[in-house]
């Protein structure tokens, strides 16, 4: 049994000032240090922070990357987005399990290794990808998986592994105004300080910038509402919880444009009168943490952050909080709950974040790309921003292109660009369907490829997944539905139960065991989940199913059993255990499974 190192645990508690608001951060630290958070430690933390034990249990059970049991020295998560699957992640998983002699989802008998699937890790352009102790490995082939297993079995620390295994490439395929811009740290800030926060806000408004996370809310309005809302303290949050499967453009921005992002946050602080900002970095991007901390330190040294920024009476600083594996934390009110040390469960709205956000105070929460753009608007002006895009969607959009394409990666295009243009640029051939905006977005088929990427047509947070004609679209839908069922926070009934019903239904349909009546019924339940769910997760969780049912109905119909009803379990198979135990197998006691067979016997 593992002896817990309470000295280290105390150190972690002290590092976080024994602040209950930092409960999630403390638990992430303990998970990394001890490989798990067993009952004794949960009790200890509960007492040390004076937080109810139920809250500590709740948080540990909520986040994917926290575990109530010791998982061991090597914690491996294989990305399981449909794109990773198309790249062969299942072979990688099989090889790892075989070579490590481990069972998926359970700590190995010696308590040294844990391996499981996880949702998209934001590396679909370099898959199959996996995370080992929060470090990303890309382009993992079964051969590489063998080498990985050898090193793990030899107990070799990750730092001794070949560094190129951990290489994450960031090379934009098509650069638009944002990626081609030369950003000079502090220039935008200087310009905004000179024109004054009110004038700068007008500039953002004139640019017509809309939120780049996908929802498209006007940034200037958000900032103004928050600025004008009464409150003791105002806060700025950057949402770097890029969890939508198939999206990785924030990963690229966090790697190459973190300076601009932090400057955008600082500008928001200037406008709304905040002195504190948070960067909420998704747990999957933990490997970017240290370089982001270094960027913050450099900006402090350059007087672009901290007290008296650029010699003015303006203080602003940024703290980085890590996520711990929860797609729903991308919803801004859920993200704030997580920042407050709780489970990432979306709050009821109204009130909205802009007026009642972090600790109930006025808070601005924007996406990474949005903040990069507010910094560039300060530096280059609104006219520069307005040079491209459409009337209702000014500017450009970063797209994360992956799937059946010759050149996956980041593409920056003006809003209004057609899907066809992107498909040609990335070398897509024989395309059957494109999933725009991830599983919660829209699935379109070739007769719609002239549609435009913009808020007024195909709105997207950036995910652009391409499927050619060889792909079975129903298994794509199945992957997405499983994703939502795994990521539902469980707060509201329609999403908690509805996504599970969807999961069961799609599995049955794909297995060819569902009838026409069931398809109709699940469509009905899907519409209930869409209408009644508490937040965007449940409201969009049924989209992959409903979209494809609309556009690719023949593919569903081809899979249906011609029976009116097929039971959910195979009675004959269920009896096989009893037959084995009783060592009796009477041929007349075999039960037919299908309606025809029943009829025939009668």
């Amino acid at each position, binding site marked *: 049994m593992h002896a817990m190192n309470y000295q280290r645990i105390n150190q972690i508690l002290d590092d976080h000032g024994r602040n209950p608001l930092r409960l999630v951060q403390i638990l992430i630290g303990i998970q990394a240090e001890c490989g798990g958070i067993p009952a004794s430690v949960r009790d200890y933390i509960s007492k040390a922070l004076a937080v109810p034990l*139920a809250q500590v249990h*709740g948080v540990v059970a*909520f986040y994917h990357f926290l575990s109530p049991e010791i998982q061991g020295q090597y914690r491996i998560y294989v990305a399981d987005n449909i794109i990773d699957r198309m790249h062969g992640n299942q072979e990688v998983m099989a090889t790892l399990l075989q070579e490590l002699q481990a069972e998926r989802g359970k700590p190995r008998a010696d308590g040294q290794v844990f391996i499981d699937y996880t949702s998209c890790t934001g590396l679909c352009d370099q898959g199959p990808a996996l995370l080992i102790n929060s470090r990303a490995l890309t382009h993992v082939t079964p051969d590489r998986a063998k080498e990985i297993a050898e090193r793990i079995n030899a107990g070799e620390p990750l730092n001794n592994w070949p560094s190129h295994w951990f290489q994450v490439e960031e090379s934009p395929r098509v650069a638009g105004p944002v990626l081609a811009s030369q950003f000079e740290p502090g220039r935008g800030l200087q310009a905004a300080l000179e024109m004054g926060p009110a004038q700068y806000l007008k500039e953002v408004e004139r640019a017509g910038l809309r939120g780049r996370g996908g929802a498209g809310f006007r940034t200037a309005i958000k900032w103004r509402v928050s600025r004008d809302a009464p409150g003791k303290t105002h806060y700025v949050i950057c949402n770097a919880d890029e969890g939508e499967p198939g999206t990785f453009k924030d990963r690229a921005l966090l790697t190459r444009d973190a300076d601009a992002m932090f400057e955008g946050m600082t500008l928001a602080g200037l406008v709304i009168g905040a002195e504190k900002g948070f960067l909420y970095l998704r747990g999957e991007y933990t490997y970017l943490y240290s370089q982001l901390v270094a960027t913050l330190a450099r900006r402090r040294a350059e007087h672009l952050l901290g007290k008296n920024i650029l010699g003015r009476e303006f203080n602003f600083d940024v703290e980085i909080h890590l996520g711990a594996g929860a797609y729903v934390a991308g919803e801004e009110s859920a993200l704030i709950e997580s920042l407050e040390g709780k489970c990432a469960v979306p709050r*009821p*709205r109204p009130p909205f974040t802009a007026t009642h956000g972090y600790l109930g105070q006025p808070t601005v929460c924007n996406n990474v790309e949005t903040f990069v753009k507010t910094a560039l608007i300060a530096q280059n002006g609104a006219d520069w921003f307005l040079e491209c895009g459409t009337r209702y969607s000014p500017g450009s959009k970063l797209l994360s292109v992956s799937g059946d394409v010759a050149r996956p990666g980041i593409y920056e295009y003006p809003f209004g660009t057609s899907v066809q243009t992107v498909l040609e640029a990335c070398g897509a051939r024989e395309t059957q369907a494109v999933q725009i905006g991830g599983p919660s977005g829209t699935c379109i088929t070739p007769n719609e490829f002239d549609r435009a990427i913009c808020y007024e047509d195909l709105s997207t947070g950036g995910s652009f997944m391409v499927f050619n004609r060889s792909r079975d679209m129903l298994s794509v839908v199945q992957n997405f539905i499983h994703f939502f069922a795994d990521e539902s926070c469980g707060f509201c*009934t*329609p999403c908690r139960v509805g*996504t599970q019903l969807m999961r069961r239904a799609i599995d049955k349909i794909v297995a060819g065991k569902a009838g026409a009546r069931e398809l109709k019924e699940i469509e009905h339940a899907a519409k*209930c989940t869409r209408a009644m769910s*508490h937040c965007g997760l449940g409201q969009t969780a049924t989209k992959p199913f409903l979209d494809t049912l609309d556009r690719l109905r023949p593919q569903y119909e081809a899979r249906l059993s011609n029976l009116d009803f097929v039971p959910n379990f195979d009675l004959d198979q269920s009896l096989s255990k009893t037959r084995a135990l009783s060592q009796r197998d009477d041929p007349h006691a075999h039960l037919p499974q299908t309606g025809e067979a029943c009829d025939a016997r009668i």
Partner: protein
Amino acid sequence: MQESEFSFELDGTDLPFEPGQSIMEAATQAGVYIPHLCHHPDLRRNGSCKLCTVKVNGRFGSACALPAQAGCTVESNTSELQEMRRQIVQMLFVEGNHYCPFCEKSGNCQLQVVAYHVGMVDMHFPPFNTARQLDASHREMLLDRDRCIQCARCVRASQDLDKKNIFGLAGRGMNIRLVVNSDSGLLGDTDFSSADHAAQVCPTGALIRKDQAYPCPIGSRLYDTPISQHTIRQDARHD
């Protein structure tokens, strides 16, 4: 109907409201029943069961969470909404393990009566048959998670009214469970009492008294008469 600047339309009837009231509160005050389970007049709003979903100016939202607004149009008793509410109740039934025919709460159970109210005649969906832990450690009260619908009424009552903070919800998705704030995780190791508010608010048979069973004969149980009158009378009593 009295002329007032504070009124909204609910299913074609003008209802007055006091500023700050939710749609649910205004409706209850006017004697109009909107089906609900997690809402309780004495407790802070939660909005998780989604049974009280209404259409406000054509958009779906929870009546318990949305503030009443002058001039807005609210639809509640429509076939579209009742149909979806029926599905929500069916979802709750297949998710847990509910056994009305011999449950001590039968006849006094809000889940059961709401099911009747929305016209549920079958579970419809395949049951999940999940294994859930029973906690019989407490002297007076039984915690049967099979019958729990995760409405957090007891959680809120214990936190806010009893100031004991005995319950919590833990886990994610369909693994979400009611947990107890004690080292052992058992109810018997807390200072929970059958006199607590938290012991009175469970809408199902998940938290019930041990020393009695079937105390009322059929015919005189709380919901042996139609639900809407009862719930409103009960809720009004709490106000």
